[in-house]
Every structure is written in C-alpha cells, then in structure tokens.
C-alpha cells in the first residue's frame, strides 16, 4: 500500500547554532493510510516536535516530510496539507474559540469559504462522529473536559482530513473524559478509516494501536506492536515507560507462583485469569 505520510532522514533543531543537539535525529518513517500509530517516550524526547513537523508548523532542518505526496516545505501546498492532517492538543480550553459548540466546529470550514449548506452538513456530521450532536447549541465552557476535547476533535474532522494527530489529548482529563476520547479516537480510526497518530504517556490508551513508536532523545528507539511491547515488563522498565498497575500486579502475581498470563491491562481480564486457576 502507498504511504500517506513519509519522513525521509529527518533532522531537526530549534536553534540555528551548529553546536546544539538535534531534537530529532535521523527519523525515517512511513505511515500507511488507515494505520493507528502510537508515539510514547520521555519528556523532551521530540514527540511534539514531530507532530509540528507533520503539518508544517515546523520545517525540517534536514530531510523531508511528505503528507499525501506533498512536501511540507512547498509553501503553496501547505494550506491543503493542513486540511489533510489536523492536530488536536492537550489543553481543550486553548482550542475552543466560539461561544457555541456548533460555531466552534464551523470555524474551520467557514475559513475555507465553503457554502453554508456544505458547512452545515460538515458540522452535523463531525458532531455526530464524536457523539456530541446533542450539545450542538451548548456553550463550550459548560462542558466537561472530555466533551470539550470531543468538540475540538469535531472541529478538526469538519475539515475532512485523512489523518488526525493527537498530542496528549487526555493529559488533563478525568477517567471518564479519557475514556470518551479514547473511544472516539478508536471509532474514527476503525469505522471511519482515518489515519491516527496518537501521542500519550498512558499505555492503557494504546493497547489497540497497530504500531507503537518509542522515542528517546530524538530517535526512534523501538517500534513494536502493543503485544510485543507490553509482554516485556522488564523492557518497559528499561525504557522508563509506564507499566499499567494492573499489568504490574499480574506480573507480580505470576512471579509469586500463580500460573497466569501477564499480558493484561484491565481488572476484568485479571479477574478472569485468576478465576481460571483451579
């Protein structure tokens, strides 16, 4: 299959000085349409920088970034490229601009100068896809964090992108809000076929990803499927990644001699395993 996103030998540094360390170093990456890619890694490892390179907010110091065949350095293509690839950030309050939910979602399409019937259609569709139709006339500041984030996602979807990039969309949310956002993202990927690039520090959120890229010091330290990565508790520790407490508990129980699977992420799964012991 043809790749939707392509990074070729990308290097990036913020300062011009030659002696500065690379923030991203030698990144080669191909992402196929429809994939769900998760990105994890320590603070300052370059995850957000990568996100900004993808839609041309930042341009590579060396190498090349392509989205749908277009290079991010081509000024004339940038406008279209940004419709194709939308970014959702951490803080929902900074992303919502209007006083009414549907106006907020309409903001992007209006800027495209689309006819109002088309805008209406896109707004309705976007709100439906994130499950926020009932809140179309609500005021964003009255919504919960999870709902605000879903509105922010709708705003991006209304541009009809092929790819959504999420930069820690759940960091500020309560457990329920996190769940809502994760379910929405998975739905958009599976049912709507959108390509997803999902940056997070929460491992539980990416157990259904196709590939996980582990960033460390500006490099891709490891690429693996969730199963490959999560079964290696020791490896996770080495990479200073999060081990969900429930996985840790399963691991410790098995160390104590209980014959159970340790590839476990929810309490329900662990209880099932424990009850199979006879």
């Amino acid at each position, binding site marked *: 299959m043809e790749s939707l996103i392509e990074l070729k030998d990308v290097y990036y540094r913020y300062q011009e000085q030659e002696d500065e360390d690379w923030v991203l170093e030698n990144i080669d990456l191909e992402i196929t349409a429809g994939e769900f890619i998760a990105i994890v890694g320590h603070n300052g490892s370059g995850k957000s920088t990568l996100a900004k390179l993808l839609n041309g907010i930042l341009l590579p110091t060396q190498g090349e970034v392509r989205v749908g065949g277009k290079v991010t350095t081509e000024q004339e293509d940038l406008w279209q490229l940004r419709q194709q690839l939308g970014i959702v950030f951490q803080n929902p309050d900074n992303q919502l601009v209007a006083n009414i939910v549907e106006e907020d979602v309409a903001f992007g399409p209006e800027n495209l100068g689309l006819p109002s019937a088309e805008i209406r259609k896109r707004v309705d569709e976007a709100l439906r896809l994130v499950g926020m139709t009932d809140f179309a006339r609500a005021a964003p500041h009255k919504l919960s*964090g999870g709902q605000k984030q879903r509105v922010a996602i709708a705003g991006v979807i209304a541009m009809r992108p092929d790819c959504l990039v999420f930069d820690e969309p759940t960091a500020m949310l309560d457990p329920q809000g996190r769940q809502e956002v994760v379910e929405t993202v998975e739905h958009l990927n599976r049912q709507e076929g959108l390509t997803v690039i999902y940056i997070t520090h929460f491992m539980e959120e990416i157990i259904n990803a196709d590939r996980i890229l582990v960033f460390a010091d500006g490099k891709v330290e490891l690429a693996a499927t969730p199963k490959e990565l999560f079964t290696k508790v020791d490896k996770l520790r080495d990479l200073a990644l999060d081990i969900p407490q429930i996985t840790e*508990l399963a691991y410790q129980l098995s160390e*104590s*001699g209980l014959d159970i699977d340790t590839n476990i992420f929810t309490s329900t799964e662990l*209880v099932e395993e*424990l009850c199979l012991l006879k």
Partner: protein
Amino acid sequence: MLIEVDSVCHRYSQEEEMVLNDISFKIERGEFIGLIGHTGSGKSTLVQLLNGLITPTAGQVYISGEDITAKEINLKSIREQVGLVFQYPEHQLFEETVYDDIAFGPKNLGLSEQVIEERVKQTLASVNLDYQRFKERSPFKLSGGQQRRVAIAGVLAMRPEVLILDEPTAGLDPKTRNEVIEEIVKFKKQFNLTIILISHRMEQVFQLADRILVLEQGELIFDCTPAELIKEQQRLIELGLSIPEVTKVLFALKERGYDLRTDLFEVAEIKEEIVKTLIKPGILKS
C-alpha cells in the same frame, strides 16, 4: 488548625451559577489531602481560594487562624505560606530563564544570592532537570513536561508550609512522575509540609492521601479516609471518578465469593492479599 474553610460559596460573576456551594472543612498541619472530582467540579477554584488568588463570594477562609478574606490582609505573606502549582504550568512561567523563574519566589523572600542559588540547584535536581543544561534556557521553549517540572520547582523553592498541587503530574513521563511524587513525599516529611493534591489518577490519591475530599458540582460530597471512600465505589463510578484499577480486582474477587480485604491500594499489598486468599483453596502452584 492550619486551614479552615467555613461556609464558602463562590461564583465568578453575578449572572453565573455558584461554582462552589457552602463548602466547609478543616485541615491540620502535616496532613496529606487528596482532592478529586471530575473536570469542572470546582477543584481549581477551591484551591485558588486557599491562597487568596480569589476572594470567595461568601464565607471565610482561615490560614493559621487568620481570616484571609478580610480586606486588610497581607496576601504576600499568605502566598509565602501557601504555595500553589497551577494546573497549566504555562500560566505560572514568566521569567526569561529557567534560573530566574525559579529564583523569583526566593528573591521575594529576601534571601541572599547564595542561598537562592543553592535552592535553585536543589529544586531543579528534585524535578529531574540538569542545572547546567537548563538554567539559561527560556521556560517558554521547553517541552510540555519540562515546563511543568520548572513550575513545580519554582513553588518548591519557596519552601511553603502548605503545598497545593493541581494535577502536578499530568503530562509528565512515568519516570519523572514517580520521582516528582517521591520528592514531594520527601519534602513533606522533611519540613512537615501540609499537602493538597488534585489528581485524576485515582491510584495516586488513594495511595498517598490521609484524607480525600470529593467535589461534585461545587458541593463537598465526601470528606473521609481512602479506606472509607472505597466503600462508595458505586457512587464514585456514577460520578465518573472510579477507584484504582488494582483495587477493583479485590472487589471482583469478593463478589465471586472470596473472603478478602478490599481497602488496599498498593500493588504489593494487593498481591499479598490475593496470594494469601488463593493459597487457602490450594490454587497456588508451589
């Protein structure tokens, strides 16, 4: 009594509804308080009342017996006592370099250059940032997690008596998250700090707190120990809050007829409890 909140109500403007409704509670010196509630329940408003950033619409807030809602109060001295790490660290950073940002508070305390430098070094180390590498950097040109660490360091450097942390570990990588929490616990022991921690990570709150306050739509609906609160499992889930995932295992096993404790929150303790329970029926291999 170190902190006393008495019948506090707050709304941001006349036309708006109350964000906090008739809140009363007390906190003793040295307590570790967890404050939970879903987004928009009023947590951030409540803690801003505690260091005088906001004056309540009605009711009183006392810090060490002093009514900080009184007009003539010296807010500067209150803010030296009560340090607040904001939910969004970018709201807290303002100086041109990381060094100046952390030194800002201690400078206002009138400390000597030498003491200030010591404190900056020490607090940067405690949030896992290399002094040489970061002291001259602009706080605005850091990654999200690095910014948060600088914000935490800035408040720690003031050595406040009360430390209020609004989601301090959101956006931190797991290693730093653990280190920051360890450091806070260490500071607490060393200086007999009083801590108020707002967090959406239930496992954090249940493990660390002596007492948990739960806010729901501006009302204080629980004020009790973690062990007492865990009994309200069903209610917490209805509120969208849940309980630690590992504790759920105990509840589920109990439901299936095993006789075991359900008021444990640490992985190691829970493991022991499960092993002990399953040994009896002879399920264990060895």
